[in-house]
């Protein structure tokens, strides 16, 4: 299941739950970070709703583990469970630093520089632009690929553009502009986070990327970039960003790519 379908999976759970008043995971066999992170916040914001855990024992156990909210890691270091970003940036910096040290050495995942760039610049963007109440990161390493997901419930990229009076045609266009390096900050050195991450994922890691923000979404697969203005049932408060790429992979010319 690609990243776009993982997000659709979340949207379908939410749509069903809005109608039935239950968050029903009974028949699910697989939940990736792209489904899980927005689902966690949905669960948090709908605490009165009954959660029906998956029938599949492995998934049930996985769901319980990754949502246990402890800042901890599995023995085999295959994942970073749902990690809430604190409002305090100094504290967040310490958490990120611990994550780096715990998950490295990661030479088979594109190298330390790539991994840190993918993570640091996105988390910094969350603090710089989103005005979030809740924000989470989660990484999951599977047999052949890794998935990195970031989610905040803030004002979204179109919202940030609107506040900064950056003109755009629609939400999908706002995401395209952000990915091309347009920044809400009046400084020519800004706008490198998302745009260089896209370049890294597309050209060096040859992976997938999904960006969903308010009414817009952009999905990159190995071939091209697709943009969407979303119908009501697929819209999202805040911004979700996911990367997925196969490993082992090495990145040649990191500094030229992010230049």
């Amino acid at each position, binding site marked *: 299941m690609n990243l776009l379908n993982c997000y659709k999976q979340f949207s379908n759970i939410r749509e069903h739950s809005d109608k039935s008043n239950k968050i029903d995971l009974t028949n699910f066999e697989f939940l990736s970070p792209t489904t899980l992170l927005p689902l966690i916040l949905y669960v948090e914001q709908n605490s009165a709703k009954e959660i029906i855990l998956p029938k599949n024992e492995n998934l049930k156990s996985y769901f319980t583990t990754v949502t246990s909210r402890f800042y901890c890691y599995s023995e085999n270091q295959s994942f970073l469970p749902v990690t809430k970003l604190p409002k305090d940036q*100094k504290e967040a*910096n310490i958490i990120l*630093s611990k994550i*780096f040290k715990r998950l490295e050495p990661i030479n088979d995942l594109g190298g330390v520089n790539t991994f840190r*760039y993918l993570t640091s610049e996105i*988390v*910094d963007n969350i603090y710089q632009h989103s005005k979030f109440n809740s924000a989470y990161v989660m990484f999951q390493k599977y047999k052949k690929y890794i998935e990195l997901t970031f989610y905040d419930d803030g004002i979204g990229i179109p919202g940030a553009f609107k506040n900064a009076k950056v003109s755009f045609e629609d939400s999908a266009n706002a995401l395209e502009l952000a990915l091309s390096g347009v920044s809400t900050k009046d*400084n020519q050195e800004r706008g*490198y986070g998302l745009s260089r991450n896209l370049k890294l994922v597309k050209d060096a890691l040859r992976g997938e990327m999904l960006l969903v923000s308010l009414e817009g979404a952009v999905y990159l697969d190995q071939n091209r970039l697709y943009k969407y203005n979303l119908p009501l049932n697929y819209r999202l408060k805040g911004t979700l960003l996911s990367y997925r790429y196969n490993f082992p992979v090495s990145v040649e010319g990191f500094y030229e790519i992010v230049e």
Partner: protein
Amino acid sequence: MKLWNKDKTFILKKIISSDLILRDLATNLFKDIKKVKNDAVVLNFKDVESISRSFAQEYLMQKKNV
């Protein structure tokens, strides 16, 4: 909490972490530097292992303005 020692030295690993990541921490660092009543301070990068692009860019911009 006082962030610098008697030699006006800011030990970055101690006041931020061994990884300098978030942009606003660079901004805050220079706010603290400006509080020092002396025209010279020492920024000690010993044991700092990495600096993100955002932190580095903000650091350079703030340094120009000191």
